């Protein structure tokens, strides 16, 4: 099971590494930094959705972003999409759940992340 998944996993990790190289922290902070307008929300949701990034990388990254002035609600969207939705990991997910269900799960999670961000913005 593990060895059968390995080529797909390596492919996915390779793509994630390339994406992460193309979008450095400063760029992220710059795009998400403009208050909490629509554009920063869209950036957070978009970048967050591309890859599945594990907590021990995601949280320090979010700490940096908060320190550069990104709003907490935007961070909530970013972190939720980072962990729950991964369009690059879809090939792996589809092996277990099928393409249709995987895409639906990711889209619902994306909507959920936005809802979570909105609610967080209301409290923080």
């Amino acid at each position, binding site marked *: *099971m593990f060895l059968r998944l390995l*080529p797909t*996993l390596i492919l996915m990790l*390779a793509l994630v*590494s390339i994406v992460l190289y193309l979008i450095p922290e400063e760029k992220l902070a710059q795009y998400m930094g403009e208050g909490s307008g629509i554009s920063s929300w869209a950036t957070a949701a978009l970048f967050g959705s591309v890859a599945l990034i594990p907590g021990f990388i995601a949280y*320090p990254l979010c*700490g940096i972003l908060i320190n550069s002035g990104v709003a907490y609600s935007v961070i909530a969207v970013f972190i939720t999409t980072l962990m729950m939705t991964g369009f690059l*990991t879809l090939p792996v997910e589809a092996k277990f*759940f099928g393409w249709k269900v995987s895409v639906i799960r990711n889209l619902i999670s994306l909507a*959920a992340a936005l809802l979570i961000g909105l609610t967080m913005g209301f409290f923080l």
Partner: protein
Amino acid sequence: MKKFQKYIFPLVFLILIGLSYLFDFATGEKIGLNFWMFFKEMILFLPLMFILIGLFDVWVPRERIEKHIGLESGWKGTGLVILLATLQAGPLYGAFPFAYILWRKGCSIRNVFIYLGAFSAIKVPMLAFEIGFLGLKFSILRTLITLPIFIFIGYLMEWYLKDKDFEVTQ
């Protein structure tokens, strides 16, 4: 041939990274460093996940899964599945095989998706990290808001997949 095809991209990628190091190509080296970071995580967590899956498969009988987190398990089942997910660690793709074994042993569709939600969004080992970098208030709020939302997603997926012969495959 088809079997060989899926190895081509990973191989080309690894060769390119290797060449980057050989010729001091900075872009390739940085991508290689990122890759190494993710690869380490995978190599650390996935085998653990598969051991867990193996033990789970052997030790936990189907009747028990059906009874506690199956179709008629109710809120107790939801709580149990969340507890199970939050105590585990690792990337979400590590949860897919575990979700498969849960489903095969009779866990309900709803609880499979609640498991995935809890696994990705709320993890006890990660909570310390979150509090450290984003503060206690943020973590508590995020956890409390996220919890009902992915339980709702579980119900939504169950409702959507109810009559659709949905299967988790290996």
